[in-house]
């Protein structure tokens, strides 16, 4: 019942560089499989529904409130339909592509062995990060599914109010297949700690050189089969690269390719309901605890740490945006507060299980001015119409978080350091920040390139197939009427 798992992305690389001490004395794991603890299962199920709540209604409202009333239903429909579409795709082949056995391609993609959830039953379990601890595979499956649902839904904010519903759905179906599942595999296709610990135990118990070599080979094999970014040691606790950088750059590319909204920069395009955006942002915050603390796959002290980091980084980022805006613009806006909070949530995502709470606060304080700069100035200068600031908040916030993770994980800065399951005793204190930052940078750049270029191609493809953009008259009338034949409000 092995399974890759988000958090220990660093294990492989760490182990790759560590001499395996022969004095290890792990208790051998007997054949009797561990049973999931109901508490862990309860937490994973709760987390999964929280991440669903982030998409619907959370993100849908956050985004929807920011568009004009005539495009409200288009945002709501796109979000809801993406959730539904990805739910089915994920069951049919997504889970298998992301977390199945990729065989010889296993550094780059999962396999087809779990198509239609083949072999998964209510009795299947997967490993968590604590050796010897498991959760039901269905819980892991559905938790990961909710991540695959929300990521493409994030993208639509960039080209809001001007892309056809059919184009959005087609693009998303392509995008999760070609961009998301592979990247998820690269980063989260990690080694099963139980298998590693088993092999390390063999190594320790090995009587002769041959046995030692065999055990070492086993360890090397396990490590060699992980996703290539995981193999480089990139840390991404809950999805800074896989979710936010990934969606953010895809959004930017889409906004540029589809072009600006009619009237952009000339007419006022004010949010139709900041109230709804605030509700959405609040539900994002609440749900994000499932996203981040759920990524620990268990309910323990480390989970509580991820939870606390999510809380305090977000609080700090909201304050920080408020203060900067107050100083620069003279007034602290509600939209600024909630945008800051989302920027904080994004930034803390990759760091949530690694940083300490004070580090998380510093990260939160830092990310808001950076994102604000992109949202307010860079966007205007560069002249693209990233309607709901998917790039400015998610991509930039995600990059900030991904890089900061390499810093804040350091035990010297209150971080938790990196876990080497095969060598728990000798590892402490050997944290190499430069090496880690390099790994982080590689993950960021790889994601930007694969998602940026890949998405561009997919948009063009969709344009050829169904056309990306409605006619100007349809756009003026609003997508609610032209795409869906309804109006959001009849007061």
């Amino acid at each position, binding site marked *: 019942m092995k399974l890759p798992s988000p958090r220990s992305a660093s294990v492989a690389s760490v182990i790759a560089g560590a001499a395996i001490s022969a004095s290890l004395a792990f208790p051998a794991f007997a054949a009797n499989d561990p049973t999931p603890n109901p508490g862990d299962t309860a937490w994973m199920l709760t987390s999964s529904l929280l991440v669903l709540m982030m998409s619907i209604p959370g993100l849908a409202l956050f985004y929807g409130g*920011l568009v004009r009333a005539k495009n409200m239903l288009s945002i709501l429909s796109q979000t809801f339909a993406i959730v539904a579409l990805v739910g089915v795709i994920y069951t049919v082949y997504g889970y298998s592509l992301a977390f199945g056995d990729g065989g010889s391609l296993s550094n780059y993609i999962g396999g087809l062995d779990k198509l239609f959830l083949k072999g998964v039953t209510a009795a299947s379990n997967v490993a968590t990060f604590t050796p010897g601890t498991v959760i039901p595979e269905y819980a892991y499956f559905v938790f990961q599914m909710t991540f695959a649902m929300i990521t493409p839904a994030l993208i639509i904010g960039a080209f809001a109010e001007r892309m056809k519903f059919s184009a959005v759905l087609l693009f998303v179906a392509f995008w999760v297949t070609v961009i998301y599942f592979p990247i998820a595999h690269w980063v989260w296709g990690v080694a099963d700690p139980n298998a590693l610990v088993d092999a390390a135990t063999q190594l320790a118990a090995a009587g002769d050189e041959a046995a030692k070599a065999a055990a070492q080979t086993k360890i090397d094999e396990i490590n060699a089969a992980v996703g290539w970014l995981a193999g480089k040691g990139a840390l991404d606790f809950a999805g800074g690269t896989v979710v936010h950088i990934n969606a953010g750059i895809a959004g930017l590319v889409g906004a540029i390719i589809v072009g600006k909204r009619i009237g952009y920069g000339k007419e*006022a*395009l*004010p*949010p139709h309901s900041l109230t709804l955006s605030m509700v959405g942002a609040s539900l994002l915050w609440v749900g994000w605890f499932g996203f981040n603390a759920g990524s620990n796959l268990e309910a323990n002290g480390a989970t509580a740490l991820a939870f606390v980091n999510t809380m305090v980084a977000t609080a700090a980022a909201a304050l920080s945006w408020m203060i900067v805006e107050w100083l620069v*613009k003279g*007034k602290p*806006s509600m*939209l*600024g507060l909630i*945008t800051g909070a989302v920027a904080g949530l994004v930034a803390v995502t990759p760091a949530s299980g690694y940083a300490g709470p004070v580090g998380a606060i510093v990260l939160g304080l830092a990310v808001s001015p950076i994102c604000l700069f992109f*949202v*307010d*100035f860079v*966007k*205007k200068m560069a002249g693209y119409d990233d309607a709901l*600031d998917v790039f400015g908040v998610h991509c930039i916030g995600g990059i900030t978080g991904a890089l900061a993770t390499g810093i804040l994980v350091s035990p010297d800065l209150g971080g938790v350091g990196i876990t080497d399951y095969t060598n728990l005793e000798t590892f402490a204190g050997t944290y190499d920040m430069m090496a880690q930052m390099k790994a982080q940078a590689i993950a960021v750049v790889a994601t930007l390139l694969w998602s940026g270029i890949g998405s561009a191609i997919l948009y063009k493809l969709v344009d050829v197939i169904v056309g990306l953009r409605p006619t100007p008259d349809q756009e003026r009338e609003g997508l609610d009427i032209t795409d869906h034949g309804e109006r959001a409000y009849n007061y």
Partner: protein
Amino acid sequence: MKIVTAIIKPFKLDEVRDALTNIGVHGLTVTEVKGYGRQKGHTEIYRGAEYAISFLPKLKIEVAVDAALVEQVIQAISNTARTGQIGDGKIFVTPLERAIRIRTGETDADAL
């Protein structure tokens, strides 16, 4: 008969209505409108985008009255709607040729 149309600040509605009732005007129709004029608006900022809002919320009151009452109506409205600050609004008087009460079919002065 005349129609007296007044553009006023929204929070003055109740006072104006009372003043009109006092001089015997028992019907009027109110519309929410946006006014553009000397009174300056405000600026709204949503993330990067700044919008100068120059249309301000006003109420338009329309009162159909007998010509004889017009002067009084104007006085009543002026007195109560005035705050002395820019944007207090306008009163317009236009001719009304016929008036009919739908319920009864009564016409003109009887219909008001």
